[in-house]
């Protein structure tokens, strides 16, 4: 599997995502924000950080960068995209994921370890996660309060687009609607979450629960690549 980790100016989780993807056994490379070529990536990760300084508001400038054209094309062709923290904010600003991420209810930056329930284990991002398993992951953000107007929120729930939800004992750290920590788009190919799975990648760091997300991606990509090769053979 090839993972492309996008580097915006101001990304600071890029090398962490690269580290986690490689630990999971993927081939992973950085993709510069000025490039529209994703280098044949099966999965694109938009990492955490402060893309373009998060000026105006988080993620709003990054959506106009050249690489986002490549990301849209990648999505249109059925590729997978994972947005972590700032990457989630960018995907929401770009309209690739529903909702908006507002300032935390505390009005402060919040860093802590939280627990999230995995609401769906049938997505390419969660398929390796046993049903009912919760993940222990760190959060680190100032703008992570998930918001969607009430009717849309009901729709989101009805469509089962909520993938990760903050649960006890730590609970909801930022005031997100419905304790939402991460969502998926209707196609099931684009997922974003505020917690950092790439930082929970080794037991020595306090948890390796995040590797389940990367392993899920590896499994999904292997299947897609396998399927692609098969069909190519049929055509050939």
């Amino acid at each position, binding site marked *: 599997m090839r993972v492309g980790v996008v580097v915006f*100016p*101001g990304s*600071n*989780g890029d*090398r*962490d995502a690269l*580290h*986690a993807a490689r630990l999971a056994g993927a081939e992973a490379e950085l993709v510069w924000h000025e490039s529209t070529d994703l280098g044949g990536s099966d999965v694109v990760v938009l990492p*955490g*950080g*402060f893309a*373009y*300084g*998060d*000026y105006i508001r988080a993620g709003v400038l990054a959506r106009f960068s050249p690489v986002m054209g490549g990301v849209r094309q990648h999505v249109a062709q059925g590729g997978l995209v994972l947005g972590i923290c700032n990457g989630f904010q960018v995907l929401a600003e770009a309209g690739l994921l529903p909702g908006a991420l507002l300032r935390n209810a505390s009005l*402060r*930056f*919040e*860093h*802590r*370890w939280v627990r999230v329930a995995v609401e769906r284990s049938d997505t390419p991002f969660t398929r390796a996660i046993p049903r009912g398993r919760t993940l*222990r992951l*760190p959060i*680190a953000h*100032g703008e992570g309060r998930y918001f969607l107007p009430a009717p849309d929120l009901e729709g989101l729930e009805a469509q089962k687009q909520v993938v990760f939800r903050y649960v006890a*004992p*730590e*609970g909801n*750290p930022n005031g997100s609607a419905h304790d939402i920590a991460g969502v998926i788009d209707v196609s099931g190919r684009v997922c974003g979450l505020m917690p*950092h799975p*790439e*930082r929970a*990648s*080794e*037991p*020595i*760091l*306090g*948890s390796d629960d995040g590797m389940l997300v990367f392993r899920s991606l590896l499994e999904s990509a292997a299947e897609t690549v396998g399927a692609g090769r098969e069909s190519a053979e049929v055509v050939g």
Partner: protein
Amino acid sequence: MTLLAPPTAESAPLHRALGLTDHELDAIVERIGREPNQLELAMFSVMWSEHCSYKSSRRLLATLPVRGRDVVAGPGENAGVVAIGDGLAVAFKLESHNHPSAVEPYQGAATGVGGILRDIFTMGARPIAILDALKFGDPAEPGTRALVRGVVQGVGGYGNCVGVPTVGGELVFHPSYAEDPLVNVMAVGLVREEHLTRAVAPGPGNFAVLFGSATGRDGIGGASVLASAPFGEGESSKRPSVQIGDPFAEKLLIEASLELIHRRLVEGLQDLGAAGITCAAAEMADRAGTGIVIDLDAIHRRETGMEPFEVMISESQERMLAIVRPERLDEVRAVCTRWGLPAAVIGQVTDDRHVTVVQGRSTERDRVATDRVTDGASLLSHAVLARIPAAALTSDAIVYDRAASRPARSRPAPAPGAPPIAHDGLPERGTDPAAVLLALLGSANVGSRAWVTRQYDATVGTDTVAGNEHAAAVMRVKGTRKALVVATDAAAQVAALDPYLGAAMAVAECARNVVITGARPLGVTNSLNFGNPERPEAFWQFAEAVRGLGDACRSLGLPVTGGNVSFYNESPAGAIAPTPQIGVVGLLDDVERLVRPGFGAEGDVVALLGDAVPGLAASSYAEIAGAAPEDELPSLDLERETLLQELVLTAARRGLLRSAQDVSGGGLAVALAECAMWGGVGADVALPVGSAPAAELFGESPSRVVVTVAAGSWDALRHLAAEHDLPLRRLGVTGGERLRVELVGEGATGAAEERGAGVADEIDLALSDLRYAWDHGLARALGAEPPPDAHDRSPARTGRGR
């Protein structure tokens, strides 16, 4: 405030307005052989400021031990560097940003973080950790609360954005910091030894390339106006002297600088901090024995109409000066462009050992490339605005021997009519030790720092093994089995009474905090925060602290690899408690052998290494309960401390220790409570107390460590202690959900029972009660809402003791 108002007959002469004395003006004239012009005077005023020149401290600092087996770079470079094997080295330094933070807390603290990070990556090291040591006045005061909020948000706002985890530090409240808060920041970076880069300007003909943010009017005279004079009235007028930080620009600067270094495109690199371009140019030239010519017109600016002196001494943030060989210039420009950073050739290296400032000379690339300037003097056809020997600005700057005299009184006199505190004994005074323990755990100086550290990203970088909750941060080194262990400590309350002891104790405690993890300390950095050095009493405190720092480092075999000095931390209300802040970096050979402070398992033997000595003065206990006037400071035996640290390291290396925790703030009772809370395992211990139970339970005498060992390892530990001739006392066993400390011996039982005071000679508290007190203390003291999930456990403890 206008710095360069033309002198008039009535006003003070210009040099005085700039903070230079008449004597210093004479010394300048002596060095350059003529009267300096206005620009030269401005350059001297910042370079000869206390902050840049170390003119009062330099002679004493020269007495510190700087040699060590692993030292790669020591004082005089941007940061100390120590080798850790595998071709890797660690760069680290502590620095103060006190005065700017007092004037503008958010920007002052933010730019403090930015400045120390630049000192690290300037050397080619990638910053991997930030620690902040913060000191404030009474947390109940609204002014203090505003400062705490601003400073904490400033540290977080900057560190979080640049993506360097903030993993540790200190937060201390003491009345002496009410007007003069201290913001000391430590940064740690990793570098491959082959990439180590010096701040030098070698090779006449090479270009001086300025890259990063544009130069503006912010931070004019920061070094001289803010950092090198006491605060008086109307300090808000000094706000224009505070720099404005842009962590986004810093992040780009980090990546661009490291790329330039890794691709070997620069011959030397220096960040622009205090005294801006003047300092970088003079220091780089002086270190290399060369000169440098700077063309003012080539410096990109963020505003028009700037005076030459403003351009030369501006402390605009996020700028770097690189020395580049002409044939590398295109590649350097390309790297900067890629990272979106403006870069310009602003001058050239010369061989005349002068800093020359010219104007009107085109530095357009082609022109410069053909017009190989090697001698600044040949530029006299251009408008030469300033010409000063580089050494006169730096290594040959003025130096003082300041007068030092011991203050007549080191402790404040009791208020008139205040009831004397006759005796410190517990429980004779009828005090319930459990209540005292809860009060201590919930006090602003002992309780959990989570309210602060929650605002810091501590996990970015995927290296943080332990951070913030405990006394030392543990950062693993990717690609090896190693980890760096980092701590920062001060003992200002002790130093207020005895600066020698305060400095020595801070070194001992900081090294001990590293050692208890099983890591070997490699080196010491420091930030020495004091009052006005022109006051003999304040200078005596400084001299004593430097002596204590040196003695402790020599005894423990630790080199001092760098640091900074911050004087003039005083206001009309008084001076701060002398605060030698110490930072220690240690190396753990195998991160899997990390010893943690929390009790690790049920049924382990709890033991105390070292002995309590009398003396409750300057303790947290004295702060809440009062100390007797005749009470003294606990003593420090450096030989015993050294033995203790050797013993703990040996025990850790042999795998004997299940847990280890330093006894410090709040004493043994608090240390036991922390071990129990953090490990999620209780304990049942008996503590023999003599004539002074308060000192045994809550005293803060140094050189003590609470350890646990598996029952089967007890004999091995005993032998080890005997070999080192150190006291080791078995206190009890771990287990259960409560901490029970029974006081036994002559200082206990009888007294309370005979008096019928109804006071138990024991502490018996549920872990949940300890945790509640510890979790809520700081937020309550600051009048803030308690942390919403204050009971949660740190990541370091998941999967253990459950």
